[in-house]
């Protein structure tokens, strides 16, 4: 039996690197480094074009708030991408979780974090159900999550129509407004506080990133998920319960989608039926730009943050420069293409260099 393709995580990349006498940058890492360089260049360029780009209150705070939300959305997609699946219902799962949270606040008068936990549980449950359908029927995740998207669209609209007149739960539990407005400047250690440019919501993203990063780089389950993604047959033959792993990955995706839904609702101000309707494309952009493979088996948590940051920096920068709607998306596409190419250009250059030095 031939060995299964090796799954690539940040940790393994390093151990392989160490074994080589002449260290060559891994393509995944090169891609992330490329992203970081592009982001840095863009930040400097936008900043020199308009100093308002460095405005803590008006530019950086809202920018980081958007990045925080979309990074979690990216992680939700990353969870299923790790097993080679996709979740087209990521936005609607966010809507469902947010709806349950809103319902809990309005009807059960739950405190902010109790409602959050309830919503996350519902997100996990709907994700697990989706995963179970996929593993039980063997139908492609694309089809199942697309169907789930339609089911949830109907369900969410029905519930909002039943319980509200304005398609939104506008009840604000204690602490919700503060969470939206507060930055790390409101978190103090003695007289020294954090930066007013970093929203407190960013902490949710950090926690999510640490948890997902830990799962994939430190745990057996995480490695099994990646093996399921790179070669499900090999995973089965190795005794990995692939069905359970598929359910687990989708449950994680649902939970993270729910968290993103909560963060968006807090940012916007109410729990509406439209939450998550703009999540699908960013959910793929962040991870794919950051080096997570659509075919499964390789994930990058830091890459997801970088990928999301890149798209948001471009958007914010172009908006600040007053680029019109028609040109904005063209520039966005062009810069993203350039960013995606940097990793490839780097690989081609290093391969050429290696050939000539041989």
């Amino acid at each position, binding site marked *: 039996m031939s060995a299964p393709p090796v799954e690539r995580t*940040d*940790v*393994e990349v*390093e*151990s392989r690197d*160490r074994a080589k006498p002449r260290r060559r940058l891994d393509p995944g890492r090169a891609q992330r480094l490329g992203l970081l360089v592009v982001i840095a260049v863009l930040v400097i360029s936008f900043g020199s074009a*308009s100093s*308002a*780009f460095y*405005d*803590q*209150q*008006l*530019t950086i705070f*809202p*920018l980081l708030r*958007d990045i925080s*939300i979309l990074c979690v959305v990216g992680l939700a997609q990353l969870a299923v991408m790790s097993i080679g699946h996709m979740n087209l219902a990521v936005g609607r799962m966010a809507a469902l979780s947010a709806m349950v949270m809103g319902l809990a606040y309005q009807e059960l008068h739950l405190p902010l974090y109790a409602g959050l936990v309830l919503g996350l549980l519902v997100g996990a449950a709907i994700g697990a159900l989706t995963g179970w359908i996929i593993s039980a029927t063997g139908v492609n995740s694309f089809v199942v999550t697309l169907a789930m998207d339609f089911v949830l669209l109907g369900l969410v*609209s029905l519930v*909002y*129509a039943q319980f509200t*007149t*304005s*398609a*939104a739960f*506008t009840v604000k539990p204690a602490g919700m407004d503060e969470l*939206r407005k*507060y*930055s790390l*400047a*409101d978190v103090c250690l003695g*007289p*020294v*506080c*954090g*930066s*007013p*440019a*970093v929203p407190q919501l960013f902490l949710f993203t950090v926690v999510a990133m640490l948890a997902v*990063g830990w799962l994939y*780089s*430190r745990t057996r389950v995480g490695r099994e998920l990646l093996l399921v993604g790179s070669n499900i047959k090999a995973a089965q033959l190795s005794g990995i319960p692939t069905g359970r792993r598929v359910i687990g990955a989708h449950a994680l995706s649902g939970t993270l989608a729910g968290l993103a839904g909560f963060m968006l609702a807090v*940012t*916007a*101000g*109410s729990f*509406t*039926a*439209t939450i998550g309707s*703009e999540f699908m494309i960013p959910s793929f952009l962040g991870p794919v730009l950051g080096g997570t493979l659509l075919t499964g088996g390789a994930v990058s948590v*830091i890459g997801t943050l970088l990928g999301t940051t890149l798209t948001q920096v471009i*958007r*914010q920068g172009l*908006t*600040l420069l*007053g*680029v*019109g*709607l028609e040109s*904005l998306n063209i520039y966005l596409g062009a810069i993203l293409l350039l960013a995606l190419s940097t990793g490839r250009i780097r690989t081609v250059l290093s391969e050429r260099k290696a050939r000539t030095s041989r």
Partner: protein
Amino acid sequence: MSRSSVKSLKRAAATGVVLLAAVACSTKGASDTAAAPSAAKPLSAVKIALVPGGSHPYFQPWKTAATKARSDFGLGAVTFNETAEWDQAKQNSVLTSLAAQGYTAFGVFGVSPTDINSTFSDLKAKGYAVGSLGSCPAGTTDNADFCLSTDVEQAAYTAAKAAIKAMGGHGALVHLTGNNADSNTQRRIAGVKKAIDETGGKVTLLTTVTDIDKDLQTAQKAVSDLLTAHGSKINGIVTTAYNPAVAAAAGVKAANLPIKVVAIDDDPKILSGIKDGSVAATVTQNPVGQAYVGSWALGQLQSKACTVRTPGISIDSGSFVVTSENVDTYDVARQAKTTQLIADFKANVLSCS
């Protein structure tokens, strides 16, 4: 702990340090800085941004109205930014970007009526003048200085009454409208229902078709499906969104059915439909008045020449029933309403020194 995990931890720590270094720390109370009350400024120092929820034909008159308001009132600048793409998060980002560019007064058509109050209070807290233009926040409170918009429930009610009248006071009516998850749509549905209820059962609501204002193709397909399935049973169609209005006018004309269509807004296709009789009536709104009067009022507020008597007050910018009788002259009434709005603002809405 393995060497690889140590290395990973180091890297995570390094990332954390970079993040921290990227943003300076602050001292206690730094973020509590409320906007200081600024001194009076001339109108030429006020920069106004008009920000619709996204690109839509309804807002196109805002562009010319903004330019006219700038020259008529001597404002510093008036810009029009339609890059919000019907996403509240994007609209918030557009607004803060404009603020960073030096715009200090905002006329906003909020994407999400239930969320826009949070955006308004954020802008107000920074000392900017804010007008809710074209759409008021859902609920009873409005955190903007004022709301100048069509009363959507009233406009839907007026449109439904016009349709019922055209139908001869009895029969089956269909309502075509936009995004069901938008509270304004719920208000439009309520307006149509109110008009139907007043007929005491003589007019019935056959169906309400929602979510078909995304683009013209979606609306055309929905109208085509509707006419195929129920064409003979329908006596009237009332539309309270732009694309369904254009699609219904064209669809009914093409199918040659005796259905009375009441449209919304004054797209050239709808106006020509009124002239040739395929559209019974249309209810037009006053986008020019919203942008023109809104810019003027925002200029007055941000220059500190005036204050709002009742913050969050709602003013109807007017809706006008257009039939074959007044299709050539309705714009005169609309211009008169705009002139009257400025007088109303001076007399009742603003308090000027």
